[in-house]
């Protein structure tokens, strides 16, 4: 396996293997991720899907090691990025990767831009050193990044503060920052959740375009399957810190193999056809990480659960082609 670690042509740029994360909190240790494995290839757009609290954001934040490592988090497993395990890098090596080769955009661009600095100040922090040699050079570079993400009058916008911009504009600024050093991997944490539907489409289109034109790998964290179906090639479905299904987006939508995925797919409201009595919903709530029982983690909410499901924990098993699922009853429903 080690030979595959090096990011040779055709190999994955990001290879997460058996990543488990525990958070130390005041209430004890919480298992937040359990054996998560995923791969991202250059130029590929992968979706990470699931309800709130299932560990999607934790997963991608650990790629950048954004958790408070001094006291909060214990990692287990490996995260290979271009052949190097980021969990073994020093702080300064890590800093070079952050915002350099891996960039990130967050859900709420209002709270994720520093409210008291001009766009210019914040964008210039991301401008690569060689463009910074002259001040006008740095500004021109920053302005060109704004133009790249479709912002008009970039020099005017540079002088503005985040609160003077609309939500869509701020998210574009956040994307411009992320792109400033030409990252090869973009981690997008629900980038459109806080935006209007029309703006959502524009921002997704922009990300998609950058992914195609720059050959950037993208992990899109979302709970919106409609967005996934329009933009991504592959999807991983997460539930309670585990990957429960991995498939191409087409397979996932047409024939979901895990009851949880099935529930998610059925929860998409349909525009055509007769209106249902009520909208479909998966019963129950996501339990807290401390309340995990043995057996399949989804069993308490699963309408297909057998006695076995509450006793024995299923592993991720292949279904068909590249599709795999963590369920005892694959193919039975």
């Amino acid at each position, binding site marked *: 396996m080690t030979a595959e670690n090096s990011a040779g042509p055709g190999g994955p740029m990001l290879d997460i293997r058996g990543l488990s994360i525990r958070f130390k909190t005041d209430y004890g240790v919480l298992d937040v991720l359990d054996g998560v494995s995923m791969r991202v290839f250059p130029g590929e757009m992968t979706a990470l899907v699931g309800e709130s609290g299932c560990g999607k954001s934790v997963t991608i934040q650990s790629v950048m090691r954004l958790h408070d490592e001094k006291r909060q988090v214990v990692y287990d497993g490996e995260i290979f990025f271009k052949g190097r395990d980021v969990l073994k890098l020093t702080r300064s090596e890590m*800093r070079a990767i952050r915002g*350099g080769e891996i960039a990130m955009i967050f859900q*709420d661009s209002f709270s994720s831009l*520093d*409210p*008291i*600095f001009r766009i210019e100040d914040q964008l210039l922090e991301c401008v690569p050193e060689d463009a910074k040699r002259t001040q006008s050079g740095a500004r021109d570079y920053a302005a060109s990044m704004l133009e790249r993400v479709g912002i008009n009058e970039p020099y005017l916008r540079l002088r503005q*503060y985040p609160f003077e911009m609309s939500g869509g504009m701020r998210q574009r600024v956040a994307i411009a920052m992320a792109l400033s050093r030409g990252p090869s991997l973009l981690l997008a944490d629900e980038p459109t959740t806080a935006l209007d539907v029309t703006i959502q489409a524009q921002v997704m289109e922009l990300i998609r375009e950058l992914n195609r034109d720059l050959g950037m790998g993208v992990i899109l964290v979302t709970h919106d399957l409609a967005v996934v179906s329009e933009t991504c090639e592959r999807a991983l479905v997460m539930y309670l810190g585990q990957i429960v299904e991995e498939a191409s987006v087409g397979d996932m939508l047409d024939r979901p193999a895990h009851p949880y995925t099935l529930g998610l797919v059925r929860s998409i409201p349909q525009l055509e056809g007769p209106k249902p009595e009520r909208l479909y919903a998966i019963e129950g709530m996501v339990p807290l990480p401390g309340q995990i029982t043995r057996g399949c983690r989804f069993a308490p909410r699963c309408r297909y659960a057998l006695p076995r499901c509450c006793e024995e924990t299923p592993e991720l098993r292949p279904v068909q082609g590249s599709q795999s699922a963590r369920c005892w009853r694959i193919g039975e429903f």
Partner: protein
Amino acid sequence: MGRYLLRRIVSLAPTLVIVSLLIFTLIHLIPGDPARVMLGDRATEQDVERLREELGFDRPLYIQYINWVKGIFRGDFGRSVFIRESMVDIIGSHMAPTIVLTFYALLIAVAAAIPLGIIAAGRHNEAAGNLIEIFAMAGVSIPSFLLGLLMIIVFAVKLRWFPAAGYKTIDEVGFWPHLRYMHMPAAALGCMQAGFLIRMTRASVLEVLSSDYIRLVHAKGLDDFRIIFKHVLRNALIPIVTTLGQSLMLLLSGAAVVESVFNIPGIGQLIIHAVARRDYEIIQAVVLLATIINVAVGLTVDVLYAIIDPRVRLE
């Protein structure tokens, strides 16, 4: 910025009018008569009446108020019936030690609190952080007069580092010897505010540290130094600056207590004597001055606030 400032200043005028009216009525509601105090126990009723007339205390209250306000606009802040000096001189000479004491105490409080607060936030749930919190809690809890007395025992009586009490002006002894009289009073006075500010700074820094934009600057690959001193500190300072105005006012009023512990002839002593003797004009002038200082501090804080936080300036 200019318009913002103008708007703020205009909105202060009603405050001053209301406060001056309140001061005036309240003071005259206090039982007691300066004429009677001046003349002593053996004065006849007629003598007292005559003096009241002379001083203008027999006129209706609103006339007295109008005359007082008129005087202020002419630069005449009234005349003490007991101290034969101009009001400006009386207040000026008593104000100097109080101002030095207050600002010195604020300086001590801020210089101690902001670094300690940042450390307490960075090391929360660790020994160092907990220790600072205990220190802050103690600072908040110990009354300044008690701390002052303890300091006198330890640093003046036992160690003989500082003079136990008293006061010498800069003109008399020069700057540094003058300050020697102020170290202990200022430390005693500033301790409580230091405690408040440590807790305030810690809470503010912790809040900023957990914000999304700090996560983003981490994700941008900035080094810790830049993150702390540029993004965290400036954002965390916004609520602290607001608190500083309140701190200054609390220190100013707390100064009266510390002044009496250390026997410093400040504004506190002046007003205590004035109240005892019903020296209306001094009380009025001092309270008005306090109001003006309060309002000026508030304005300064607003301006600082606008400088730090662009959202205030532009909205």
